């Protein structure tokens, strides 16, 4: 299973960033409105391209978590 990318978004930019992600060909987009985060499953995108999107604050790869 491919790991997700976690993207924090500027206030008020969730929709525009989500649309821009779709334009990049990303199909799996999960929006967490309360915390202003979008999670994606990248296909062949580069993280640098995501960071260039207006309204993106930061992009991180999902980490493993344990008890």
């Amino acid at each position, binding site marked *: 299973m491919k790991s997700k990318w976690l993207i*924090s978004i500027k206030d008020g930019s969730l929709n525009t960033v989500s649309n821009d992600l779709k334009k990049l060909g990303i199909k799996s987009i999960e929006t967490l409105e309360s915390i202003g985060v979008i999670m994606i499953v990248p296909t062949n995108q580069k993280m640098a391209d995501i960071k260039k999107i207006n309204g993106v604050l930061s992009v991180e790869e999902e980490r493993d*978590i344990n*008890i």
Partner: protein
Amino acid sequence: MSKTLKKEEKVEYTGRYLVLLPEGSNTSDSINQINSISGLNLKSSLEFENEFFTDKDLAKTDGIILDKLGIAIVNEKPKIENSISSFGDNQMIVEKETVVYAIGMLDESTQNYVEGYRDAINQITNALVGSEIDESSYTEQESEVESVGATWGLKATNVVPTNFLKYNPYNGAGIKIAILDTGFDFTHPDFAGRPVVHQSFISGEATQDGHGHGTHCTGTACGPLNSPSASERYGIAYAASIYIGKVLSNGGSGGDGAILAGINWAIANRCEVVSMSLRGFLTGPGYSAVFETAAARALAQGTLIIAAAGNDSSRPGTVKQVMHPANCPSIMAVGAVDVNMNVASFSNGGLYPTYGAVDIAAPGVGVYSSTKLPTKYATWNGTSMATPHVAGIAALWAQASGLRGINLWRKLTSTAKVLSSPARDVGAGLVQAPTKNRLIKFPIDRFPIERVPILVNPRFPIDPIGPIEKIIR
């Protein structure tokens, strides 16, 4: 005789009377009673902003009842000059204002006079019965007695005070706690009939806890006041609303995307407290900007996220850093201490000065709580066990103070008990629950401390550290 009477008449002419109302009567009842028997028209202090009133306010009325003290300051008007004497005939204690003159307040300003009298009464009241009294004291005393057999963690954090003069009336009622973990065992008998809102963020796994870790953490934060089968009380916010987010698999692992989804779910459900006994391993400096942004937004919306510092240390030789996501500045990181208030050997420390600090400490060694069936109960170690202590107590403070978000954070750290260990390891200190002073209804000198009954709950006879024995002289 006549001279004495004349002197008294002179004093009565200038002043008022202080009427101690019958015990247990509320202001509304008392006003009706006094007005009925005396023909006076008294007001309640509640009718004044912040219950502050001046001499002029008093002069405009027949008298004012001090709501919190159960005392009326009464003017006797010549037209109904026998009204004061009627109080004494109705089991009320009446004092003349000369008592106040005796403590030297006669020449003070009107405001100082009223405030000084109030302070004096408060001081005497505090000395006799404690600083806070309310109608619920009696029933809450009973519930506390039922809880004497409790884990050392609940005693050390004042959830179950070991000081006989204190009790804890708070139970988390009205507060929502989200436990983001391995889920919850919905068949556990200690939670029978308790509503639980739940959501799984693990693909292919239901919220039912196949591990036991989530049920243990939930038990500490939200477990019951009484249990038919537990050896002692282990739950803190027993009346809080439970929200279970399964963000770790039954194997105890997962990705932090599920945790973000769980946090988002908790905020959307207006949970005041989120407890996360989990960690992602980390080496070197830095913290997650995504999690920090999320946590800051959570705080702004009134949700406090509390997370385990991690169990990667091997003290005294090796101290590892606070792990992800507890190392985010807007997430409260919890370290673990043992029953002797020593830092647990495994508990991580705040190695970086500007972030990644341990913010607070809680019991994390030998923690007894619920777990999945058939085991039902287990005693475990870890900052995972310390974290729900802080979460449960955060719920108590949220209930007690009405504070949320960053203000709730500050309340937790400002009320923590300072420990001798470095702040790097325990932060502000050992988390402490809000308490109240007991109402003692009898004169202290007629009930010496040696005769205070030892509180033993037959359901929970085991007292692991037994601090209650302090009252056995």
